[in-house]
């Protein structure tokens, strides 16, 4: 059974080969050739992923569960009793992730043909995309937590390289640096978590079922909450949970297709994926800590939604919306209370909901970002004030953007409605408080998304700007991915997701359990929010919005400045770490420690200089000292 999946190795090796080829020989190729190499490799990878998924899910279930398969697993680095393995693990969530990653990546590869057309370093761009895709795929199919960490670092560096793609721009350099260092800081906790886990549980493997592993893990039960929480901190860094989210909005300095791929659909959900991966341990050994995760998620979702309401840069709005939506997935995992599916009280619904939302969100958020890319391509600016009334000029972008907006707001029949509703169900099952908070945030989502939508496509047109340069719809390489992803968004809600993925692997027919009352309620609330946004932002003049700004200037300013968190970080890193740790340490090193050795050298030199008088060569002096010495000795002897 496992041998038939050995081909999945190609899913990793092909993008790697493409990266090496484009990285080493890319500059000798034309732009078109380089793009074609990257895209066609990704095409093959996507086909292989779909084929894997098809094969995997058409396997017969054993005891009602899809078996986890390990087609390949080799020891990469022996570490005494432990070992660092590299391999491929196929189970429902990794297979779903393969589909998500390869689909979005392929669309971004195609889209970039148009978006990056004529850019300097086009080949390098495709090389980095391949590197990223390889790393991300390696991350999701990891057979053990250390392999996940390895690829985790690799996606981090791909993200660094792609954010800093326009390396001549100051903002891009700063953003890439910030993204890397913040996530690296979080990764340190992840690493320590892995070290603790490895030491006490005596394994890095994800095979929690294996009898020996299970026994060892049970023996480590006392430390597991700590280890898992430390790993979660790493996940929070990548998945931009408060207060480690600060890198994500800045990461928007990268090319827009990169934002769609890395900073919306794939890399940023790695943290969610990690928690889902370790879920059996969370639920069994650290349920209380898991609820902490839920509350961190809930706060992040609220914070990001609040900030998103005040931003004017369209990519920033989408970035904060991404943070908020990922937090939804985190909440969904966090509110779980049991492994067994199918109960009336939905204790494990969140797991499935989280993965489902991950899937649907990847598609509609990628659509939104790619639409934003089209808009930026058309008006050469990220700022909403440069847009307005764009629906006339760019019909395809307009319609796809609108559908994606409806999906993220949770309007049926689009996919977001179904996945978000599962999350709300799970939250209500956990506690009504959580349920209502998340419903409120969902309403905020609908509001800021439609604020964005009206700001771009309706509202006041920036005639001055548009006259100089009439915006027009983009070429097919850019519109095709939009349409494709939008189609998925339209139908994805009807995928019987619970049959494929659930906490304990048992088939779960969620439509049978669907809480239609709740669905209607949340849908109604979303519609009210949209109506409110329409009332405020649709018109040419926006008196209500102005009034709101004027009524609470402080609040608006704070939200616009993202509650000054970046300034706090800036202060800590520059003022405290650089000024009060590094600088004094460097001074101490040069002046105290080095000074001591210089003093030794100086002292020796001075001493030599002073006592050399004794070796003057003058016979009288020697005789004098001789007598002096003799007299002293005589005295000592007499006394």
């Amino acid at each position, binding site marked *: 059974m496992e041998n038939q999946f050995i081909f999945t190795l190609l899913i990793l090796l092909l993008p790697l080969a493409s990266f090496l080829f484009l990285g080493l020989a890319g500059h000798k190729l034309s732009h078109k050739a380089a793009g074609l190499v990257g895209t066609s490799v990704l095409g093959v990878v996507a086909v292989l992923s779909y084929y894997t998924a098809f094969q995997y899910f058409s396997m017969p279930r054993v005891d009602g569960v899809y078996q986890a398969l390990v087609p390949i697993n080799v020891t990469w680095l*022996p570490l005494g009793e432990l070992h660092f393995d590299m391999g491929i693990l196929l189970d429902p969530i990794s297979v779903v992730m393969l589909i998500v990653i390869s689909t979005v990546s392929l669309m971004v590869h195609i889209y970039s043909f148009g978006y990056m057309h004529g850019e300097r370093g086009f080949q390098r761009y495709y090389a980095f995309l391949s590197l990223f895709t390889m790393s991300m795929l390696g991350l999701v199919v990891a057979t053990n937590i250390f392999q996940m960490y390895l690829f985790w670092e690799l996606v981090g560096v791909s993200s660094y390289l792609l954010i800093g793609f326009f390396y001549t721009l100051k903002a891009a*350099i700063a953003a890439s640096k910030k993204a890397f260092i913040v996530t690296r800081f979080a990764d340190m906790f992840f690493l320590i978590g892995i*070290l603790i886990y490895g030491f006490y549980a005596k394994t890095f493997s994800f095979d929690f079922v294996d009898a020996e592993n299970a026994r060892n893990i049970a023996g480590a039960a006392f430390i597991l909450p700590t280890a898992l929480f430390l790993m979660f901190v790493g996940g929070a860094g990548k998945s931009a949970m408060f207060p480690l989210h600060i890198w994500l909005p800045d990461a928007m300095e990268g090319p827009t297709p990169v934002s769609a791929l890395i900073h919306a659909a794939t890399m940023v959900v790695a943290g969610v994926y990690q928690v889902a991966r370790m879920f059996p341990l969370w639920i069994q050994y650290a349920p209380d800590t898991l609820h902490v995760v839920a509350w961190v998620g809930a706060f992040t979702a609220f914070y990001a939604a609040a900030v998103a309401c005040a931003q004017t840069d369209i990519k920033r709005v989408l970035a904060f919306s991404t943070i908020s939506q990922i937090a939804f997935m985190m909440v969904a995992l966090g509110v779980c209370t049991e492994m067994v599916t199918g109960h009336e009280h939905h204790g494990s619904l969140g797991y499935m909901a989280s993965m489902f939302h991950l899937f649907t969100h990847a598609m509609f958020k990628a659509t939104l970002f790619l639409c934003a890319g089209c808009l930026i391509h058309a008006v050469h600016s990220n700022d909403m004030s440069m847009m307005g009334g764009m629906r006339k000029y760019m019909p395809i972008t307009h319609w796809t953007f609108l559908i994606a907006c409806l999906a993220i707001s949770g309007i049926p029949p689009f996919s977001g409605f179904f996945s978000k509703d599962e999350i709300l169900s799970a939250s209500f099952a956990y506690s009504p408080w959580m349920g209502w908070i998340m419903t409120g945030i969902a309403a905020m989502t609908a509001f800021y998304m439609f604020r964005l939508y009206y700001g771009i496509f309706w509202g006041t047109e920036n005639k001055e700007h548009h006259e100089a340069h009439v915006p027009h719809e983009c070429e097919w390489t850019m519109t095709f991915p939009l349409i494709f992803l939008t189609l998925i968004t339209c139908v994805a809600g009807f995928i019987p997701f619970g049959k494929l993925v659930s906490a304990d692997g048992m088939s779960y027919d969620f439509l049978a359990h669907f809480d239609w009352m709740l669905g209607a309620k949340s849908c109604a609330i979303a519609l009210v929010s949209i109506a409110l946004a329409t009332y405020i932002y649709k018109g040419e003049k926006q008196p209500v919005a102005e009034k709101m700004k004027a009524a609470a200037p402080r609040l608006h300013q704070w939200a616009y400045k993202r509650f000054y968190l970046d300034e706090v970080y800036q202060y800590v890193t520059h003022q405290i770490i*650089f000024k009060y740790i590094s600088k004094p*340490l*460097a001074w101490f090193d040069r002046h105290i420690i080095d000074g*001591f050795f210089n003093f030794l050298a100086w002292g020796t030199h001075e001493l030599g200089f002073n006592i050399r008088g004794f070796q003057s060569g003058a016979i009288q002096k020697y005789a004098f000292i001789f007598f002096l010495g003799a007299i002293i000795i005589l005295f000592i002897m007499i006394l």
Partner: protein
Amino acid sequence: MNFLSIFVLIPVLMLLGLWLVKGQKGIRSVMVVGSSCLLVLSVVLTILFLQERAAGNTAEMLFTASLDWITPLHIKYAVGVDGISVAMLLLSSIIVFTGTFVSWNMNKEYFLWFTLLSAGVFGFFITIDMFAMFMFYEVALIPMYLLIGVWGTGPKEYAAMKLTLMLMGGSAFLMCGIFGIFYGAGAQTMNILDIAHQANGAHAIALAQQHIWFPLTFAGFGVLGALFPFHTWSPDGHASAPTAVSMLHAGVLMKLGGYGCFRIAMFLMPQAAQDLGWIFLILTGISVVYGAFSACVQTDLKYINAYSSVSHCGLVLFGILMINQVAATGAVLQMLSHGLTTALFFALIGMIYGRTHTRDIREMTGLMRIMPFLSVCYVIAGLANLGLPGFSGFVAEMTIFVGSFAQADTFHRVLTIAACTSIVITAVYILRLVGKILYGVCTDEHHLKLSDATWEERLAVICLVAAIAGLGVAPFWISSMIDGGVAPIVNHITAYAADLSLNPFM
């Protein structure tokens, strides 16, 4: 004649050849032929060694030979290699080979000293007689003075004098330690293996004596391994040294320190190593974090790298002092990794300095557009240095951390976690540097006209990058080879009971 001696013979023949030939071409051909022979030889040695091990030869040292040298003093010329020395020989030959290409335009006298230095290094790694080791150690140190003093830059006389005096101070400690071990163990032999295995139940060297000689020997080698607070020669010395000398010094010579600490200080005085190791463990813990923080605010490229070396070499000693097979294996991997990475760094810094005539990061920007090859390699070196998977640093650091974590008491845990923070601080200074000098737009008229790497520079850089990536992608074979060398030493140390009461933090 034992074939290990060829490692010393080749440099001697190179010296002869350099003395005889005339003209730059002749010098270059002697150097290229000689260093290639060394490289091939070390690869052959590795293969032979692995074959021998695969064939089931489990002796602690392979290819041993012993020759009486100064009989009344029981000094022998004894050679032999285990997994650790094979790895070190491989590293040295790569650095000497690439160093040759990096110093392509240097004159005859420079190469004479350079070759003598490498003779000392190779000699050090093949011998297992303490006295011979010490002699080769000194052979490697003296040329450094001249190489920096004559061919260096900046305040070179000061730097050369400082480096030499501090290292000589270290050797003074070391000599005391070595003679202490010799007499403590009964004044019968200088052979490391013989001393270690002389024990009949109790160890050959009395505990009280171990407590005196261990700190002396460890600190003596520690000076060379940039142990805090004896590291201050490193920034000045590296900053003034010519490129290839920096490479050889940071890449190989600093490894002599770690190697000696492990092979002589800890192996021969196992009880003291366990009793008093904590003092040095704290110092190395400080080195790791302190070096990294200090590197954050430096403005000279070489100073940044020198402090980074303090941090990374600290990790070497840190791993060794954990007295744990995995951590010690990681430490040796870190020696390899740091040797290659830092050599690459110094090579690139030298090449950049040779063009821009400045090493001040505030005076350079946007080099990526001007010298893409060098800049891309610089980014690679930086990423390797901050422990990116796929490069050697990741493998070494992870092995050290996993090993260190097996020491479950609070004292070791706290230090391990402190050491883990270095991975973040390293990222800070590396990215700061890359962002400042490589990215951005160059506005300097003079810099805009500069050219990219020449073929010999490219060759050197590519060799190093390939070695770093090779180690990072396929670490298992070299890791298990080193593990085989580390195991007997660690087992020997832990065979003796430790007196934990000497550590106030336990």
